[in-house]
């Protein structure tokens, strides 16, 4: 299994602007190792934008983000696994090649290709080009990335889209194992999961939770 994590994630009064409009402001939360945050709200309210901000893909309009417990000069984005709506899978590479790339690129030598392949049971498909996979299998491939390299923060945006019930259960278990190992997760989903979320955040169109 993975060695335990000890990284917290703290957001201090962060705000988000897109296209000149303020989506939310003065949003704060603190996740200690082992805690997870569930993000809810109607479509278009800013859940994806929040996750992208945490991943470092969208700048913060205000406030700060920190990860106490991580190495000094490590930017927060390098502590995160970001699984967004898109699968980041290359059709021309095989499943194994896709995961091997992420293992080496994100891994710093700590990668675990075998673990990633078996996480969602993709071993049988390992030699197939990713372009041939079904939507659900591609989603599993995207989620397998979480196991390609150990990172303390998981940012999951609607992770269960296209997954069948067994896969959703596997995802649920994976999140719980990650939390037990001291990891931190921020998940945006409509699907009920058995994972216990220490914190919940509901965004609405007034600007705040």
């Amino acid at each position: 299994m993975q060695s335990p994590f000890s990284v917290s994630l703290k957001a201090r009064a962060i705000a988000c602007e897109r296209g000149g409009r303020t989506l939310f402001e003065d949003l704060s939360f603190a996740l200690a190792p082992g805690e997870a945050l569930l993000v809810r709200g109607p479509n278009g309210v800013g859940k994806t934008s929040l996750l992208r901000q945490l991943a470092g893909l969208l700048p913060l309009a205000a406030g700060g983000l920190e990860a106490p417990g991580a190495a000094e000069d490590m930017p927060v984005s390098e502590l995160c696994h970001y699984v967004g709506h898109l699968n980041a899978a290359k059709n021309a590479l095989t499943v194994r090649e896709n995961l091997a790339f992420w293992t080496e690129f994100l891994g710093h030598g700590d990668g675990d290709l075998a673990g990633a392949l078996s996480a969602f049971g993709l071993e049988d498909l390992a030699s197939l080009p990713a372009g041939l996979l079904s939507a659900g299998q591609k989603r599993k491939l995207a989620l397998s990335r979480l196991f390609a390299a150990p990172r303390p923060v998981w940012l999951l945006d609607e992770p269960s889209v296209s997954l069948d019930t067994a896969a959703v259960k596997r995802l649920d278990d994976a999140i719980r194992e990650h939390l037990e190992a001291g990891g931190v997760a921020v998940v945006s989903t409509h699907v009920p999961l058995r994972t216990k979320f220490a914190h919940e955040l509901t965004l609405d169109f007034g600007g705040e939770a």
Partner: protein
Amino acid sequence: MSAALTLLRRDVILAWREGGAIGVALGFYLVVVAITPFGLGPDLNLLARIAPGMLWVALLLAALLSADRIFHNDYEDGTLDVLTTGPLPLPVLAGVKCLAHWIATGVPLALLAPVLGLLLNLPLDAMPLLVLSMLVGTPAVSFVAGIGASLTLGLRRSGLLLALLVLPLYVPVLIFGVSTVSAAVVGPGSPWPPFLMLCALSLASIVLAPIAAAAALRTAQR
């Protein structure tokens, strides 16, 4: 940096496998050079004189054809987002992808050029200088194309827009690249001064273009 090499290897393999792009660029190069004499007449002396310019211009156009794939594919399937969370600073990431474009497109085009030069009656003793000037100048082509590709990421008609934005920036490369070869074909003068300028342009592009491209990528990702 092993992450950079991993990415470079992946990009070159992808360019090779989604093989359409390299083949199309080479094919386009061949077609443009091949139809030129129909427009200009088969006078071999004339063709020999315009050969360096023609080969360079057609190479620029062919390289631009495949330029929007430098970032577009990764942007479209979400890979770019995940790459950004990796260990490479964004300018290095952009630079590696431009380098991959050079390896997968620039170098093959440069190596094909002498063959096409035969069609235009380029003197044989100018061929080595032709290939050399193109190998040295195509990094500038790929890296500047990277700026265009990052600025036009995800836009409609991005291929045409990219060419419009980037072609004026190629004027120096074109001037010095063609002069290097022309000096061998027609004279006057030595090819080495323009050749050194070409080297300088490529080196400057390799260093500076990724900075601009990274800024443009950040802008597009928001």
